[in-house]
């Protein structure tokens, strides 16, 4: 077989980011001690550049390159831009967090950039091999990030749990992939899909492979009953890492799910819809109910993430293009809200004070009415109360579920959302209705405040006018 030079253009953002990440590593090596902020600035610049490139290269038509292993289409482009945007915010918050606690290390930014690279490859995967490559690149960077603070035993424990369970999930996923390969004889998602449409009768082995794949993805997404790692990792990791783990990788995981199930396994849609329905209902129930019992905000938000994943799956369960678009909207919105919520914990913290217990939010309205208002926006948006964008996220997936004739599922979802409302309201209650015991001074600078304000106001603005983002998701999925 003659060697054909692949088309590099669709993968230019990834190539750029890989180069930049290496450059950041070098800069850290030579200038890291004298000019620590260079690393940060360069990392941020790389992200901006990469995002611009993604936008500039927005593919009109889906293109596949590198011998059918890499695909660039509307979905991947939009997801990439938002992952980068979210990471940009994350690094901003992280710098503040690390500065205050003397944890600032160049590796942090290098690892983050490589993680983003992994996510970008993941959502652009057109073959099982690329998919796995992206997934592992992302996951390994995240394990290291969680363990970044070596002094903290909690962080080490979290990293260990994350690693072991993550490896288990990867193994499951690989096993599923090997079954798919065994049945279809190809690693390319397109070939795998064609096999199902031609074959007529669906192989039982294929469905078995599907089961393993769904389990693997559910692990990565943190859907119940594969959610055990989520609360521990969220609580144990340094907040800035929690912020990262809880946001951008969720978007990537959504991309992965779409690639595997919709691109690759459309022929067994009926089967995976059933599996996802179980995962979704369980996640919403477990997440929303157990979150009520939490006293640590990071842990509470971890359970809330599980519930959100359940909601996110609803759109995919609808099994239509519009449903996928709704889920995509949901995951992007969720990333924005998670960013704000964990960002708020960082903003309120200071050296030796993590501000991650619920009680730390007591009486915030007296200390800073503006930040208190932002907490209100973030929490109620997560709960899905209009006029914040979280409502539209829930609304759009519910709409698709109802359109797919599963009114019962929508009813279950909204009732569980009401249960979820309780613990979000509790945070608002602490902020507004309770007297603060200690007046811990706020140490955050203007820049971080501007960041969190932009973040929360974006949630409000998108809530008032969600049209553009919704339309973007719909067109991205064609």
């Amino acid at each position: 077989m003659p060697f054909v030079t692949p088309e590099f253009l669709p993968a230019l953002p990834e190539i750029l980011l890989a180069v930049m990440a290496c450059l950041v590593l070098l800069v850290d090596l030579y200038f890291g001690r004298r000019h620590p902020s260079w690393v940060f600035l360069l990392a941020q610049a790389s992200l901006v550049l990469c995002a611009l490139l993604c936008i500039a290269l927005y593919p009109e038509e889906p293109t596949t390159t590198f011998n059918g292993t890499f695909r660039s289409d509307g979905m991947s482009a939009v997801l990439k831009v938002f992952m980068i945007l979210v990471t940009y915010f994350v690094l901003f918050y992280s710098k503040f967090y690390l500065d205050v606690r003397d944890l600032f290390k160049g590796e942090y930014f290098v690892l983050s950039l490589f993680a983003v690279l992994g996510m970008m490859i993941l959502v652009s995967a057109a073959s099982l091999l690329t998919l796995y490559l992206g997934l592992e690149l992302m996951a390994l960077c995240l394990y290291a990030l969680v363990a970044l603070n070596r002094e903290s035993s909690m962080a080490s424990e979290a990293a260990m749990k994350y690693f072991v369970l993550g490896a288990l999930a990867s193994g499951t996923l690989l096993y599923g992939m090997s079954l798919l390969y065994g049945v279809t004889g190809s690693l390319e998602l397109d070939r795998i899909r064609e096999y199902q449409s031609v074959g007529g009768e669906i192989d039982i082995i294929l469905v078995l492979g599907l089961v393993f794949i769904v389990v693997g993805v559910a692990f990565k997404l943190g859907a119940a009953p594969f959610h055990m790692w989520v609360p521990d990792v969220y609580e144990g990791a340094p907040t800035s890492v929690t912020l990262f783990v809880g946001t951008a990788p969720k978007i990537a995981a959504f991309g992965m799910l779409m690639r595997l199930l919709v691109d690759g396994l459309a022929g067994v849609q009926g089967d995976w819809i059933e599996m996802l329905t179980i995962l979704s209902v369980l996640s919403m129930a477990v997440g929303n109910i157990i979150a009520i019992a939490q006293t640590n905000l990071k842990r509470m938000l971890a359970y809330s993430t599980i519930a959100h994943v359940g909601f996110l799956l609803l759109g995919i369960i609808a099994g239509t293009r519009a449903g996928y678009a709704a889920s995509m909207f949901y995951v992007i919105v969720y990333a924005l809200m998670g960013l704000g919520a964990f960002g708020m914990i960082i903003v309120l913290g200071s050296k030796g004070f993590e501000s991650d217990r619920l009680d730390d939010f007591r009486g915030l309205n007296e200390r800073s009415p503006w930040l208190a208002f932002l907490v209100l926006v973030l929490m109620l948006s997560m709960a899905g109360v209009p006029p914040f964008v979280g409502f539209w996220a829930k609304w759009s997936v519910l709409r698709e579920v109802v359109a797919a004739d599963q009114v019962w599922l929508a009813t279950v979802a909204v009732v569980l959302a009401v249960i979820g409302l309780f613990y979000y309201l509790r945070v608002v209650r602490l902020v507004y209705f309770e007297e603060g015991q200690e007046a811990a001074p706020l140490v955050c600078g203007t820049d971080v405040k501007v960041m969190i304000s932009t973040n929360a106001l974006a949630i409000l603005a998108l809530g008032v006018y969600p049209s553009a983002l919704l339309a973007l998701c719909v067109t991205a999925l064609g």
Partner: protein
Amino acid sequence: MPELPLLSLLIWLPIAGACWVLIAGERGGAARSIAFAVALVTLLVSIPLYTGFETDTHEMQFEEYATWIDAYRIHYHLGVDGISLPLILLTTFTTVLVVLAGWDVITRRQAQYMAALLFQEGFMIGAFASLDSILFYVFWEAQLIPMFIIIGVWGGPRRIYATIKFFLYTFLGSVLMLVALLYLYREAGSFAILDLHHLRLGLTPQILVFIAFLLAFAVKVPMWPVHTWLPDAHVEAPTGGSVILAAIMLKLGGYGFLRFSLPIAPDASSELDWLLIALSLIAVVYIGFVAIVQPDMKKLIAYSSVAHMGFATLGFFLVFRLLDAGDVQGAMLGVQGGMIQMISHGFISGALFLCVGVMYDRLHSREIGDYGGVVNTMPVFAAFMMLFALANSGLPGTSGFVGEFLVILSSFKANFWIAFLAATTLVLGAAYSLWMYKRVIYGPVANEGVASLSDLNRREFAILGALAIAVLVFGIWPAPLLDLMEPTVRHLVEHVGQSKLGPGL
């Protein structure tokens, strides 16, 4: 005359004003002046809405239409008819009084309080004026937030319990309504409320949709047995919050019945009207008895609210029995009576809560047992409260009489026993209102606290005076209000009289 987007102005002016108040902040007491100015301007803006309203058509007026969310066909569609207009006017009127009522009383974080009131006003007007069901839903839910804050921050000792209960209860009801709206969209391909009115649906889906709406609106009204959040919320809320809650927010439930339940699911409404009538009568009779024994004035008025709102729902759901008997006039009488009852209850309950507020500000107690002989120290106040207590018990010549009378009249045409039970309110209402009045106002001066009371100041006098005028005017001359509603109510009654069961369903 150039067309001003009056409805948009009415919605966004208070919201913008609220932001202004927040920015102005707590310093120097500017917040309350700004808030008052904004509320007053909003009231003035709502006047051309009334004068320009044509009373000979049921069509929506002052319509505004713009695309909001294109991908999902949601529109920013506003308009008013004879049902929503009075409620909007009630909102703008009440908000001015409520801002005044909080003038000196709210001392802690006054700017936030005033801003919350204005946000609340904007959202409520938005809900009344929306002609797109999703737009309606957004406003409907959004207004929970300011009220949640109002009760939670400025409320009484058990405020947190009360406010969370309030939020969760109403939210639970409304999310099911959301599912119903999404279902209707699937069937009709539109979120426009008027399109939904023309949607043909089978009986089973109609009943399910009706139940979903019922949960949302029954919680809001509130109807027995989902009324339990109301006494808690009222007792703990600051005076202003109670007034908004009683005078306007509860009306959203009744409005919902007229705008959604009846026209969208007429066959289900007809099928289940016995249930609604029964629940309304339980509210009137049983809750009436419950009100009598309350030791807390606010709780008493809260229960009396439940009873009075039971009248409104009774009036609405008598329609089918009367239509079956071929009595269109009687059916209209019931709906109009219910509407008048809602408006009048807005004035009366608002006024009574303000009266309790006046006393509470002085003695910091709402217990009936802590008062007695107030007339000796506060004669002017006693006169006002006398009027409102009598209006609450349905004295002819006050607005409280008109609504109750119309509803009882129409229920007589429907069924004697319904009318009999409904009419017990005249006894029960008098019992709980006047007995409370007697214990609080008359008798010897009960204690030193009462002895030290000072009569109404000018601000309080103005507030109660305005309400007293409203109660009397609508009591003596309700014709303008009835004329305003007539075409809309006639159209509604004719609309619900036609079965919407599709062919072959």
